[in-house]
């Protein structure tokens, strides 16, 4: 079974849901405590939602300096698969593992509701089993989700296929900028998720784990977790203790 780790920071609050979602997606899901410096032989790592270290200073910034994040950064540097969800996306952005920054929502309010996104790429380790672009319905729950990067960076992301998810309206049309309810936080170019240039580290604001079971009202997030687990199974590393 493919082992996938879920990092637990003080203040993480979606770690249990994410472990459950990964199990539904076929993984052996294990928690990784923030003070540990190793990833326990995991073939992929997920940074879950929540408020790591209270979101003090800036969302995600203090988590960046935790021992486990040094291990995650080294893992990502070797091509390991890393997915950041919501606060996990903020941590990845602060750590410079994905481009851009997440600003306060333009409407200033914390938003907890369903949104619709499309997958702009279906050939990544995070979307290969999504099937169609969407729209995918998943919940958001964040106060700082307004994706920002300078114009040159945004153009580069579009050119290089690094925009992974985009907010869309009910008709599947790209959400507008400020004031369009389909773009909940005013993200530039309606960007809801990005992937790094190498293609092994991705972050998104919506919560796939909260849309991974029919009981939750949507299963649209499950294929994202399945894609990750499937890609991780192919990238399976030598399990801890296997070398004798």
């Amino acid at each position: 079974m493919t082992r996938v780790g879920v990092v637990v920071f003080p203040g993480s609050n979606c770690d249990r849901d994410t472990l459950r979602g990964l199990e539904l997606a076929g993984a052996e899901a294990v928690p990784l405590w923030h003070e540990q410096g190793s990833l326990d032989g995991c073939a992929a790592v997920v940074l879950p939602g929540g408020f790591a270290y209270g979101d003090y200073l800036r969302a995600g910034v203090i988590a960046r300096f935790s021992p486990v994040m040094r291990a995650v950064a080294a893992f990502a540097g070797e091509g390991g698969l890393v997915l950041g969800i919501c606060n996990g996306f903020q941590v990845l952005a602060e750590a410079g593992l994905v481009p851009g920054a997440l600003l306060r929502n333009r409407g200033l309010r914390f938003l907890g509701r369903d949104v619709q996104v499309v997958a702009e790429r279906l050939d990544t380790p995070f979307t290969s089993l999504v099937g169609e672009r969407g729209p995918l319905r998943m919940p958001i729950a964040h106060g700082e989700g307004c994706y920002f990067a300078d114009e040159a960076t945004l153009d580069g992301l579009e050119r290089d296929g690094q925009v992974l998810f985009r907010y869309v309206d009910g008709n599947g049309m790209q959400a507008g900028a400020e004031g369009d309810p389909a773009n909940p936080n005013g993200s530039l170019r309606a960007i809801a998720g990005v992937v790094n240039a190498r293609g092994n580290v991705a972050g998104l604001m919506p919560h796939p784990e909260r849309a991974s079971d029919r009981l939750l009202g949507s299963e649209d997030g499950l294929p994202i977790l399945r894609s990750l687990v499937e890609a991780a199974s192919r990238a399976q590393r030598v399990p801890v203790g296997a070398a004798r």
Partner: protein
Amino acid sequence: MTEFRFAVNVVPKPGILDPQGRAVEGSLAHLGVEGVSGVRVGRRVELSVAAASEAEARATVERLAQELFSNPLIEAFEIDALDGAKAQASAAAAAGGAR
């Protein structure tokens, strides 16, 4: 070693949307205040650094400001030295103002 005290002022870079600043600006009408614009909300971090010289202490603060207190993509910072005399004077002024 001497202890040097600094303040790091972090503000959103020009052109970066500052929803907090905009909300504060929007509230001014309720106070009956007119003619105020360009409100930007940031944060201030004060800290003491033990070092052999002020230059050395300042270098540490620079590093912290760049790596931790600010996100260079979206924020700019300024470092102010807070020497003891100045701090005492401002504390006295504050106390005086309270009387």
